[in-house]
């Protein structure tokens, strides 16, 4: 993979562009928003397809169930709000009318994780992956940059079934290929290596990319895999990599409980036990600050990934 930074863009704008493109490709794509249209970047879709855009007001429960009702007739509804209000606030609605009823609703969740920043813990959800991945029928996608979020949005629109699509607020390096086809459930090998596998998702993929040259200088040849689809997990890719490297670090902007690391640990415990370290938030709530400050504060930054790798490689020996 070429790690050249094409530009700095927010993943939520990738969603906005993807939604607009999906709307152009398929007249059945519709969108719902609960009074956060500019924040979630649904404005362009709303402008081009006003008849297919539904402003529900600050009423997320009604929004989710309306989307489920509309999906019945063959429409492909995307709901848009912050991740906190896309999951915890509407868990029962998603559980009964989207997941259990298996409706073709795409829950687009912005401002996930601590990088939402100054608004603080009420808005910085760190439990959403856990909440969504335990639901049968639910697909959980966490793309890493602008291009991938756009492509993931297009893939979600084509996929038949409930999808949780998680992205974020800050501008981050955009490095994946512009038109790379997003394959749901297929892990993305970013760097081959032999000494350790780093599994990362979302914003922490770039943090892991930055760790690679540092590790190389230390003589550690790390493999980096972007697990953009937490569920269904690409078990084959995980086991293939681990059978070679025999130790693992996971990195995510989420609680350790119930996140990517949890999913990987389950696969390892069942099939191929090996040393593992987790870079994640460990059972505390977020707080106010800038995104960069918060990533450092919660030990979700490149140096934390490097430390975790050193630790896990030492455990292997």
């Amino acid at each position: 993979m070429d790690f050249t930074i094409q530009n700095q863009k927010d993943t939520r704008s990738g969603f906005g562009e993807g939604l607009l493109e999906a709307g152009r490709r398929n007249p059945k794509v519709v969108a719902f928003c609960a009074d956060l249209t500019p924040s979630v970047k649904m404005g362009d879709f709303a402008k081009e397809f006003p008849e297919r855009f539904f402003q529900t007001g600050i009423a997320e429960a009604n929004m989710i169930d309306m989307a489920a009702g509309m999906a019945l007739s063959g429409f492909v509804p995307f709901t848009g709000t912050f991740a906190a209000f896309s999951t915890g606030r509407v868990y029962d609605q998603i559980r009964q009318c989207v997941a259990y009823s298996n409706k073709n609703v795409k829950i687009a969740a912005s401002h996930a994780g601590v990088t939402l920043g100054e608004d603080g813990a009420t808005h910085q959800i760190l439990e959403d992956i856990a909440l969504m991945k335990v639901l049968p029928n639910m697909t959980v996608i966490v793309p890493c940059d602008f291009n991938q979020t756009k492509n993931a949005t297009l893939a979600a629109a084509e996929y038949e079934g409930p999808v949780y699509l998680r992205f974020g607020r800050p501008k981050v390096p955009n490095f994946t290929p512009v038109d790379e086809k997003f394959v749901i459930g297929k892990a993305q090998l970013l760097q081959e290596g032999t000494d350790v596998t780093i599994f990362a998702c979302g914003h922490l993929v770039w943090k892991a990319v930055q760790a690679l040259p540092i590790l190389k200088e230390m003589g550690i040849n790390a493999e980096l895999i972007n697990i953009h689809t937490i569920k269904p997990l690409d078990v084959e890719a995980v086991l293939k990599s681990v059978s070679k490297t025999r130790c693992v670090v996971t990195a995510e902007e989420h609680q350790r409980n119930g996140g990517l690391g949890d999913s990987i640990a389950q696969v390892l415990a069942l099939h191929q036990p090996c040393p593992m370290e987790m870079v994640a938030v460990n059972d505390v709530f977020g707080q106010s600050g800038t995104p960069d400050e918060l990533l450092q504060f919660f030990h979700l930054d490149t140096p934390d990934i490097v430390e975790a790798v050193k630790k896990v490689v030492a455990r292997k020996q």
Partner: protein
Amino acid sequence: MNINELEKVATQVRRDIIRMVHGCQSGHPGGSLGATDIVTALFFDQMNIDPASFRMDGNGEDMFFLSNGHISPMLYSIMARRGYFPVSELATFRRLGTRLQGHPTPMEGLPGIRIASGSLGQGLSVACGAAQAKKLNGDKHLVFVLMGDGEQEEGQIWEAAMYAPAKGVDNLVAIIDYNKKQIDGSTDDVLNLGDLRAKYEAFGWNVIEVSGNNMQAVVNTLKFARDNAFQGKPQLILAHTVMGKGVDFMENNHKWHGSAPNDEQAASALSQLQETLGDY
């Protein structure tokens, strides 16, 4: 179907409800018996539907959603009697492996069910979405939803109640099974609903009240609602019903919200409900 025939169907449905709930010794007979007349009138007279070839999308036909999913025995009996699935399947209600789950779901493949319900307060939103979809499709059919009265205590109801008039969802007919009873007692005691008519009117709905266990009145009201559709406002039918209607010892008694009759009680109930279409 004429009123006499509809009443015969409703009586058989009430027998089915008692036998289903008695058969598995669980379920919700009270609300089921009270709402029977309304839903019978919908499925056998007022809705344009095609049970023989059920389609999930509901395009080109009227759609019905049961928001208070616990009164599933009523819905299952009416759907079976209307031809969605074999009447004999009613015997499987709430038993392991059944398509007739305790609360309705599309996951087991039962024709006629489009979405799960049971967790209260969600059906009005689902119906709003389905009605909006019909508008987008240029489909001139109606969407009906039945809710409980206790269910009006859920906050989400009022989100949808605000949405539908604000956005002109005028192909939507919501019905409240207003029996004034819920699990813990009368709605007045548990959490007073206040003036539901005034509340919905204040939100912008056309509200119609009806005696919900009078078949002629129910049919007339549903016709009236059909005639008043597509005129800018959603419609709410406040159907005054009696919990446990048709079984003397169950009537107006909230204790029968969710308990099954024993053998003696079932026999007594069935003696009050004449077999009209043949038991399953």
